[in-house]
């Protein structure tokens, strides 16, 4: 058998191996993309319902005897009045046949605790409402919400259900009266954290994230660009510079939680900065994102052709003038892109923030970088730990919001790169 025949004999096998190998490659990509699709499907599938919330229409008589018995319209009196009693009264009027303490408790549990605050806010805004009878839509309790969204199965035996037959009966009556409706869940976007799922929102965490990122940006951009400019344009090639470079590369790969330990030991224990404050979070994230920004900025500086530098120096500019007037403006888009990517990383980071106490349960919307706050990813973590079924969809919805912000930032970075990218 000559060589050609030998080769031909093995050819079929070799081609089969080739096809198999190719298929494996394609399979790997398909598998990876399937994971991606599955991840998104699971998040969106769990979360899209959180943007809707069940509301109940109650008919409240804003009795002046309860709210303002003396008729003075004193703001302090109006604030501290017992609005909860009014809500309960209207529920009793709605279901007059309910008697017995336990049943009544169940009845009062139908609407959220937030209903009293809604009434309070209404009265505070417009004290003329006192004495009138109003139809008000208030958020339903999270269990009712879950029933409406199908997460509590009506078909299961009563003992295994969180909502008993009695309550389901009331709900059906409310639906028949057109007093129960799914509406847009605006509290989710405007409220801070809460133990009651129907009152919990992401606004507090979003504001916390904003302050944290603001501190991070204000510190890491100038420092990162400064470091990159020094290393790329001024630094002499010596041991010292090498050490700095190795350091930056290593820092980029240090686990994020170690930065949290640093923040805890240095910023909180040593400098006694406030716990849970965005300013500390910002400092820690600055140290974390610096390597990213420095590396991206150096790449941007490298891509500016030497002829620009030569021309500037040739015209008599000093080295600093050459950098500030010519090189930096040309490298800035690249640096900005790197910074945005670094900020996106910082926005999604949560592990180091757990270390510095940004996991506290905080209801108030933070008013500044020194107020206790939490951030979006940590809010996701906190909600993921909560036992109530209604927090599952809220966690997923918070993730959707977080991913939305990340997508926005990355799109901006891609846009900047496309728009200002120059080939020399």
């Amino acid at each position: 058998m000559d060589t050609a025949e030998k080769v031909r004999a093995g050819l079929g096998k070799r081609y089969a191996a080739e096809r198999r190998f190719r298929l494996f490659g394609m399979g790997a990509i398909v598998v990876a993309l399937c994971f991606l699709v599955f991840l998104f499907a699971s998040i969106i599938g769990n979360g899209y319902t959180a943007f809707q919330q069940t509301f109940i229409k109650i008919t409240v008589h804003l009795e002046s005897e309860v709210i303002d018995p003396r008729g003075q319209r004193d703001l302090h009196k109006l604030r501290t009045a017992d609005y909860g009693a009014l809500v309960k009264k209207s529920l009793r009027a709605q279901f007059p046949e309910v008697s017995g303490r336990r049943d009544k408790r169940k009845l009062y549990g139908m609407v959220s605790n937030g209903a009293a605050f809604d009434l309070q806010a209404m009265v505070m805004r417009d004290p003329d409402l006192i004495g009138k009878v109003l139809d008000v839509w208030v958020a339903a309790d999270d269990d009712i919400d879950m029933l409406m969204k199908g997460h509590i199965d009506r078909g299961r035996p009563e003992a295994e259900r969180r909502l008993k037959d009695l309550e389901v009966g009331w709900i059906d009556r409310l639906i028949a009266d057109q007093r129960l409706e799914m509406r847009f869940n605006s509290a989710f976007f405007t409220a801070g954290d809460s133990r009651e799922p129907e009152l919990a929102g992401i606004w507090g965490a979003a504001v916390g994230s904003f302050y944290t990122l603001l501190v991070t940006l204000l510190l890491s951009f100038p420092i990162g660009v400064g470091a990159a400019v020094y290393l790329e344009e001024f630094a002499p090639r010596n041991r010292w510079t090498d050490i700095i470079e190795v350091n930056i590369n290593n820092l980029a790969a240090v686990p994020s939680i170690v930065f949290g330990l640093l923040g805890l030991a240095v910023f909180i224990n040593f400098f006694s900065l406030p716990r849970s404050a965005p300013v500390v979070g910002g400092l820690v994230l600055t140290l974390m994102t610096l390597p990213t920004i420095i590396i991206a900025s150096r790449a941007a500086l490298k891509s500016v052709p030497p002829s620009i530098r030569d021309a500037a120096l040739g015209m008599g500019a000093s080295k600093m003038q050459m950098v500030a007037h010519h090189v930096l403006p040309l490298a800035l888009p690249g640096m900005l892109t790197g910074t945005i990517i670094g900020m996106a990383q910082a926005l999604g980071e949560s592990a180091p923030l757990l270390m510095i106490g940004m996991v506290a349960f905080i209801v108030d919307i933070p008013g500044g970088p020194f107020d206790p706050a939490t951030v979006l990813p940590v809010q996701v973590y906190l909600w993921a730990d909560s036992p109530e079924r209604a927090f599952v969809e809220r966690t997923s919805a918070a993730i959707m919001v977080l991913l939305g912000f990340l997508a926005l930032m990355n799109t901006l970075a891609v846009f900047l790169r496309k728009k200002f990218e120059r080939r020399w």
Partner: protein
Amino acid sequence: MTTPMLALVLLMLIVAAFEAGRRRAFHVAGNEFRSLHSRPRYYGSYTALWCIIPALLLLVLWLSLKEWVITSLVIAELPAALRSQSPGQLDLLVNDIRNQVATGGAAADALPAVAIAVDRYRDLQWLSYTAMWVAVLSAGIVGAGLAWRRIAPQFWARNRVEGIYKGLLLVCSTIAIFTTVGIVLSVLFESIRFFNAVPVLDFLTGLEWSPQTAIRSDQVGSSGSFGAVPLFAGTLLVSFVAMMVAAPVGLMSAIYLSEYASSRVRATAKPMLEILAGIPTVVYGYFAALTVAPMLRDTGAVLGLSVSSESALAAGLVMGIMIIPFVSSLSDDVINAVPQAMRDGSYALGATQSETVRRVILPAALPGIVGGLLLAISRAIGETMIVVMAAGLSANLTANPLESVTTVTVQIVTLLVGDQEFDSPKTLAAFALGLVLFLVTLLLNVIALHVVRRYREQYE
């Protein structure tokens, strides 16, 4: 909060200094405008820099030391009976004094000595505040004045200003060093305190991990054992599962993308893979805990296996998904760096594409790929949120991925989230674990970077 006010005043001072310096340059030049060494604004900048730098340094120093100085002064003036308490009680007292100061004056039921201390504290605070304004502003004015006096036509203002700027840039670049030093010191310092209580060898070789220390010494199960081997084993198990997913999928997709895919497929598939890298880890953690873990448990039940609902498999699987783009983009770079001539040579000998990849490209790219995999392993070891949310807390020493294990990062988080006292081994243990984590990832990174760099040089 009137420190912003001070910043505003400083800002105005800087503008004034700039203007003064600039005018002085014109003034000293007189009609011989060309005799000035630098352009007038450099003289202005020089004056302004000399105004702002001393003022800012002083301000930062003052703000960071103020609290400490006032507190020690107040403590020094306390009656001996109060001063000789244990440090912990003294801390409590100081906190109490601070709270009373913050709420506006001594509480009605305070001890007379404490009430005096509160007043003293408030006086000192006010004094420090006033002194700070005076000191910071005069530092700025004196600095600017000195600089202003030096302005002369022969004065090289531009070179001076550029020198200062260059110094500032140098400081920026050393932040990275300070960060590393800070990490090492903070972790090392607390670790040494931990190792004073628990011998190093016990920590590194002990098989029992239960960091609960007792409140009372006679409590049951109070020993608190700190043998970290189960944590190391758990970390390795989860990382191993992750690499079992990430290495083949990442590598094969890199090979496909760089060798087979058309440029159009490449242009869409690559960014899609990168999306996986951009998703926050907390999202992966949630996905692992809520979707993957129950799914594995149910599948296990069907197959007759008992899968823990916090199995290492779920955490590792999801972590592997997260690392896929990391492996794939690093391998992609390495594979693309293999010279085309080697491929052409292989094709010319009649090899098929897959034979070229397996026999020529992969061996040539192997060091780079290994380096990339090492980096991926280091990332898997340091990953926190996925394991915190999806892996367990119980320190089981097992090699069975269906059981629940705990990892180093999980324990760091559990030990440090919540109330901490910095003198209990329980809190300090977290820092010792952090030290181990830092050293191991550092070692992996150094080796990986070294291997990758060596490899790159080979083909340049």
